[in-house]
C-alpha cells in the first residue's frame, strides 16, 4: 500500500503544476470492469476547448505503476449517443513526455486529426486494459481458502485538465466484497460500487480508493507464448503455440488434498484452473495438444462451420503459483488466410492467443514464410517489436525467412488480425520436390556408372591378371561341369532304356537308344577336348587339373562299363535268358558302376566347391 501514500504526496505537488492548455473535461464517466483478471477501464470524456487556439491533442495521464501494466489503450470518437460503434473512428495514441510534468506519470497523447476549435467539444471513448492490476491479498492461501484480490484506483479522474463533473462505477464479480474505500458519495448497488458524482475538480486531483473482493476466476497467465505460424503453399497454415502457463492468483500453500478437491471441487480449490477454452478458427484440422512428455489425453473438441472449440485441461488442476507448459498445434486451410493483392501475397491472421481468458506477459509471433519469399513487410494494428530470423527445415537451402513479432502484456483486445506481405513465386514451390527427384536420379546414375566402370587401377598388375585368369578357369570348370551333367543324364537315359526293355522287351528300341546315346556321348567328348586343353594351358588351373583329369578318366571308365552292361543285358534279352540270369551276369558290372558313379559324384562335388 506504500505507493498510495506516494501518490497522495505527489498529488499535492501536482496541484502546483501549471495548467497545460485550455481544455477542460466537462464530463467524465468511467466504468471499471473487474470481473476478469484483465482490468478494463472505459472512460467517456467530454472534452471542451475553452481557449482560443486550435487544439490537436488530448493528453491522458496514468501513474507509472499503472502504466507499466497497461496492455491496451484506444481512444475512439463517440459522436452522439445511440450510434453504432463501427462508425466511431479511433485516434492515434502515442506516448509523450510533456515538459514540466511530474516524472512518475506517463502521458499518452490522443491526436485529433481535425483539431478542436474554440468552444468546440468532442466525446472520446477511451478503453484502457491493464494486466496484473489485481493483486491477490492475502498473497498465500490454503486449498480451502477463497481467493481475495485488491484493486487500487483513484476516485477522481487523474487528468492534466480540470474536470467539471465525473463519476466512477466499479463492476465486481458476483461474489463477496470484502471491503471498499468509503469516501463521499459512495454507493453500493449489487455488485457495483459507485463513486461520485464529483464536481469541479482541479487538474491532477487524486483520491485513492481500494476495493478488496473475492475473485475466484482463475488467473491464467502465460508467461511466454510463442506462436509459430508456418505457411506452406501446398495448402496449409500450421500454427503451433507453446504456452508457459502459471496460475497468477494467490499462491497456494500447505497441503493439496485430492480428496477435498474431488469431494467439493467448487469449495476446496475454487480458484484452480480446471480447463481452458481455445476458440480456434473454423475448419481447423490436425489439432493436437501435448507437452514434452507426450499427448495430454484430457481435451475435448467441438467443431461446427463457424468455429472450432477446443477445451483443454492441464494435466493437473492448477492452483495458485502452479505452473505448466504445453503445446497446441493445428492446421488451417491456406485459402482462408492467404490472399493476393497488387502482385503480393499477404497472410491475414489473428495476433493473440485463441484462449481468451489468458493474459500473456510476452507474446512472440513467428511467421515462417516459404523459402524464397522476398520483399517482406508487416502491418499490425498496434505497435509491436519486429525482428527477422531464418529457420531451416527439411530440404532448405537458404532457409526460410521468419518474421518475429514480440509484444508484452497481451490481452483479449489484441486478438486482431495482422498482415504479412511478401512476394513468392509459385514455381519455387516445386524446388524441393525437384531437388529430391534429382538427388535420387543422380544417386541411381552414380550406381549405374559404378556398376559399369572398371575401377581397377592397373590393368597389368599380377593380381588383376590372376583374377582374370581365375575367372576364366572358373568359367571353364563350369562348362566342364555342365558337360558332365549332360553325360550323367545320358547315363540315366541308358539305364532308363534298360528298364523299358525289361518292361516291354523291345530290343530294337533299346538298341536304337543306345546308338543315339553313344553318338551323343561322342559329341560330348569332342566338346570336352578344347576345354581340357584350355584348362591345361592355364597356370591357375594347376590345382584343379588333376581332379578334372581324374574325373574325365573315371567318367570314361563309367561310360564303358555302362555300355558293356547295356550290351550284356541286350544280348541276354536277345538270347531270351531269364531275368535272374541277366541279373547275375550284370551284378558284378553293376557293382563297379555304382562305385564309379559314387566316385564321379564325389569329384563333381569337389569341383562344385571350387
Amino acid at each position, binding site marked *: 500500500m506504500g505507493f498510495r501514500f506516494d501518490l497522495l504526496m505527489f498529488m499535492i505537488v501536482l496541484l502546483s503544476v501549471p495548467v497545460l492548455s485550455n481544455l477542460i473535461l466537462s464530463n467524465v464517466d468511467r466504468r471499471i470492469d473487474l470481473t476478469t483478471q484483465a482490468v478494463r477501464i472505459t472512460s467517456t470524456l467530454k472534452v471542451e476547448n475553452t481557449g482560443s487556439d486550435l487544439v490537436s491533442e488530448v493528453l491522458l495521464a496514468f501513474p507509472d505503476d499503472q502504466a507499466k501494466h497497461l496492455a491496451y489503450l484506444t481512444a475512439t470518437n463517440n459522436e452522439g449517443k445511440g450510434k453504432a460503434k463501427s462508425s466511431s473512428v479511433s485516434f492515434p495514441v502515442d506516448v509523450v513526455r510533456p515538459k514540466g510534468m511530474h516524472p512518475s506519470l506517463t502521458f499518452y497523447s490522443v491526436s485529433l486529426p481535425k483539431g478542436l476549435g474554440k468552444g468546440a467539444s468532442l466525446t472520446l471513448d477511451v478503453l484502457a486494459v491493464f494486466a496484473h492490476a489485481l493483486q491477490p491479498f492475502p498473497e498465500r492461501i490454503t486449498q480451502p481458502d477463497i481467493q481475495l484480490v485488491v484493486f487500487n484506483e483513484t476516485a477522481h479522474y487523474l487528468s492534466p485538465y480540470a474536470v467539471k463533473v465525473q463519476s466512477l462505477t466499479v463492476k465486481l464479480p458476483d461474489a463477496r466484497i470484502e471491503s471498499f474505500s468509503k469516501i463521499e458519495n459512495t454507493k453500493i448497488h449489487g455488485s457495483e460500487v459507485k463513486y461520485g458524482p464529483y464536481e469541479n475538480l482541479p487538474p491532477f486531483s487524486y483520491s485513492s480508493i481500494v476495493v478488496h473482493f473475492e475473485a475466484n476466476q482463475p488467473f491464467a497467465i502465460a508467461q511466454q507464448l510463442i506462436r509459430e505460424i508456418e505457411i506452406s503453399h501446398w495448402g496449409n497454415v500450421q500454427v503451433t503455440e507453446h504456452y508457459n502457463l502459471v496460475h497468477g492468483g494467490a499462491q497456494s500453500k500447505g497441503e493439496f488434498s*485430492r480428496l477435498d478437491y474431488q469431494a467439493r471441487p467448487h469449495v476446496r480449490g475454487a480458484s484452480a484452473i480446471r480447463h481452458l477454452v481455445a476458440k480456434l478458427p473454423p475448419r481447423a484440422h490436425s489439432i493436437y495438444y501435448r507437452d514434452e512428455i507426450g499427448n495430454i489425453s484430457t481435451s475435448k473438441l467441438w467443431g461446427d462451420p463457424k468455429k472450432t472449440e477446443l477445451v483443454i485441461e492441464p494435466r493437473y488442476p492448477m492452483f495458485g*503459483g502452479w505452473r*505448466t*507448459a504445453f503445446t497446441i498445434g493445428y492446421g488451417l486451410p491456406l485459402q482462408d488466410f492467404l490472399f493476393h493483392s497488387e502482385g503480393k501475397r499477404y497472410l491475414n491472421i489473428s495476433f493473440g492467443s485463441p484462449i481468451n481468458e489468458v493474459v500473456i506477459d510476452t507474446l512472440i509471433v513467428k511467421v515462417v514464410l516459404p523459402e524464397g519469399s522476398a520483399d517482406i513487410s508487416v502491418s499490425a494494428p498496434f505497435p509491436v517489436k519486429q525482428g527477422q530470423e531464418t529457420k531451416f527445415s527439411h530440404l532448405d537451402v537458404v532457409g526460410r525467412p521468419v518474421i518475429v513479432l514480440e509484444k508484452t502484456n497481451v490481452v483479449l483486445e489484441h486478438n486482431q488480425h495482422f498482415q504479412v506481405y511478401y512476394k513468392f513465386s509459385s514455381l519455387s514451390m516445386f524446388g524441393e520436390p525437384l531437388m529430391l527427384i534429382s538427388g535420387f536420379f543422380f544417386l541411381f546414375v552414380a550406381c549405374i556408372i559404378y556398376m559399369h566402370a572398371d575401377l581397377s587401377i592397373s590393368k597389368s598388375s599380377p593380381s588383376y591378371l590372376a583374377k582374370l585368369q581365375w575367372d576364366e578357369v572358373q568359367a571353364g570348370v563350369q562348362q566342364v561341369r555342365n558337360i558332365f*551333367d549332360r553325360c550323367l543324364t545320358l547315363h*540315366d537315359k541308358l539305364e532308363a532304356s534298360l528298364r523299358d526293355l525289361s518292361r516291354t522287351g523291345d530290343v530294337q528300341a533299346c538298341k536304337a537308344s543306345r546308338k543315339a546315346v553313344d553318338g551323343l556321348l561322342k559329341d560330348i567328348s569332342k566338346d570336352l577336348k578344347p576345354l581340357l586343353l584350355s584348362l591345361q594351358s592355364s597356370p591357375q588351373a594347376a590345382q584343379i587339373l588333376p581332379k578334372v583329369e581324374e574325373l574325365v578318366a573315371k567318367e570314361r571308365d563309367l561310360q564303358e562299363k555302362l555300355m558293356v552292361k547295356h550290351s550284356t543285358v541286350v544280348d541276354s534279352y536277345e538270347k531270351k535268358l531269364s531275368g535272374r540270369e541277366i541279373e547275375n551276369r550284370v551284378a558284378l558290372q553293376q557293382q563297379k558302376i555304382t562305385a564309379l558313379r559314387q566316385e564321379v559324384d564325389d569329384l563333381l562335388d569337389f569341383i562344385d566347391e571350387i
Partner: protein
Amino acid sequence: MQRVPSYISRSVAGSYDNEAVAIFALIFTFYLYIKTLNTGSLFYATLNAIAYFYMVCSWGGYTFIINLIPMHVLLCIVTGRYSSRLYIAYAPLVVLGTLLASLVPVVGFNAVMTSEHFASFLVFIIIHVVALVYYIKGILSPKMFKVAVTFVVSIGVVVCGAVLAVLIALVASSPTKGWSGRSLSLLDPTYASKYIPIIASVSEHQPPTWPSYFMDINVLAFLVPAGIIACFSPLSDASSFVILYIVTSVYFSGVMVRLMLVLAPAACIMSGIALSAAFDVFTRSIKFQLPGATENSERDAGETSSNSVVAQNDVAKTEKNEDAVKERPSKKNRKKEKEKENVEKPSVKSQIKKKLLILPLEASIIAIFLLVLLGAFYVVHCVWAAAEAYSAPSIVLTSHSHDGLHVFDDFREAYAWLSHNTEVDDKVASWWDYGYQTTAMANRTVIVDNNTWNNTHIATVGTAMSSPEKAAWEIFNSLDVKYVLVVFGGLVGYPSDDINKFLWMVRIGGGVFPHIKEPDYLRDGQYRIDSQATPTMLNCLMYKLSYYRFVETDGKAFDRVRRTEIGKKYFKLTHFEEVFTTHHWMVRIYKLKPPKNRIRGRAKKSKSKASSTTGTKRIGTKKKNPWH
C-alpha cells in the same frame, strides 16, 4: 523374427531397448562364428571379435556368448570334429574379444577376473593342446606319435592339474566363487530368492509360466523340435552349434522370463530350419510327381527338369521367405547350407534319395498349404500380440468400460506436476521402479533408479519405506530428499502398486539393515494390510503414505487391489505433507516437512523438559505412542 512377441516386448513404440540391439549383436556374433567355422577365414574371425565387442558394449548378456562358444568348441573337440577352421574361429575370438571387452568400462578387468570367463580360457588352453597334438600327429609317424602322446599326456595332465588347482583355489577364496549374482541365479534358480532379494524382486527375473511361452513363441514351440531333428540329420559343426544354442537358451528362458529374449532368435532359427526342411521335401515330391506320369519324358529332358527343380525350389524358398518373414536375420547361414543342398540336388541327390522322400502328390500339396497357413496364422498372432500385449505403454493405462475407453494418465500427470512445480534441484525418493521415469519425465534427481548396481542405496530407500514415519523422515532428510513419491492402486484397482511391492522393499532393506525384519510385517506368514496386520506394518511409512486419508473416499477404506478394508483408517502425518495426488490417486507425492516445524515443537517440549537431546527422544517416543 521382428514379429516375435518376446522380441517386440523389448521395443515399445519403435524405440529400441539396448537389449533389442544386443540381440542383433548376439545373432550377428553367432552368424560370424559359424561363417568363420565354415570358411576358416581369418577375416571373418576378426569381424566376429568386433561383433562380440559390440555385444559387450550393448548388454551384460555377452557372457552367454563367451560361454556358449567355448561349449561348442569343446563339444567339437570331444566328438572329434577338430579342424583348423575351428581353431581359427575360436582363438582370435578369445584373444581379441577379451582385449576389446576389457576396454568397456563396465567390464574392465572382469573380463579376466570373473568365473564367467574362465570357461573360455580353459577351452582356449584345451584347443591349443589339441592343435598341438594334431600338428605333431601330422609330422610324426604313427608309431612315434603314440610315444609322443603318452609323453605329452603325462606332462600335460600334471600341468593342467596344477593350473586347475591354482584356479580353483583362487576362485573358491571369493565368497560367491567369482560368479556374479545374476549368473548364479541363472545356474541355480533358487539362489536369488535366497540371497539377493533385489534380483528376485524384478518380475522379469521370475521363471516364466507356460502361457507366456505360448504367447511368446506360439507355433514356433512345435517347430523347434522338428528343427532340432532336421539339424541332426546332417550333423555339421554349424548345426551342432545351433542345437547347443537352442538347448541352453531354453534352459535360461526357463529360469528368467527376461531371457525369453535369447530364446526367441534360437527358436526362430530352429523353426526356420524345420520349415525349410519340410518345404524341401514337399516341393521335391511335388516336382517329382507333376511330370511323374511320363517319367521317360522327364528323363529325356533331364537337364531342363533339373533346372526347373531349382526354379521351383527357388519359388518355394521365396514363398517361404514371404510367409515366414519372421525367420531370422541369421537365415543367411542356413541359406548357405541350403544353397549347397540345392546345387548338389539336381546332379547328385539322385534317384535313391529322392525316391525315399517322395510323398503322395495330394498330401504334399495339402501339407504345403497347411504350412503356409500356419505361417500366416503365426504372423497374425504376432501382430495381435504386439498390438494387445506389448504396444500399450505401461505408463498410460486404459480400461474398457461400458461407456468406452477410460484413460489413466496418472503417472504422467504426477511427473508433469513434479517437473513444473518443484525446484530444479529437488530430490525425489520413490521405489526404484519409477527412477528412470522420474528422471526422464519429471527431470528431477532421484535417489534410486532402475540401474541396480548399487544395492545399498535401494536398501536404504526400502528401509525408509518400511520404517515408522520419524525414522523414515530422518533417513530421507539425510539423503536430502524433498519429495517422496508412492504409487497407490487401491482406489482404482491397479495391482502393481507399491503396497504389493512392499514385501520386497522389506526384504531388500532387511538384507542390508538387519533391524528391518520380514516377519515383523507378516501375520502368521501372511502378508496383509487389514485389521489383522501387524502394528509394524500399519505404522510403516509406505502404509501411511499410501492410505493417508483414504478412508474419506468411501467411508470404509476398501482397498480394491487387496479386496479388503484397510487396518488402520484414521491417522495423521506428522513429518510429511501431501502436496499432490493424481486424479485416480495412483501417484501420491508427499513433501518432507521442514525441520523448522519440529524445532518449534521441540522448543515447546523443551520448555517443560530440560535438555534438548532427551527432548527429541521424548518427542520421538511420544509421537509414536498414539499410533501404537
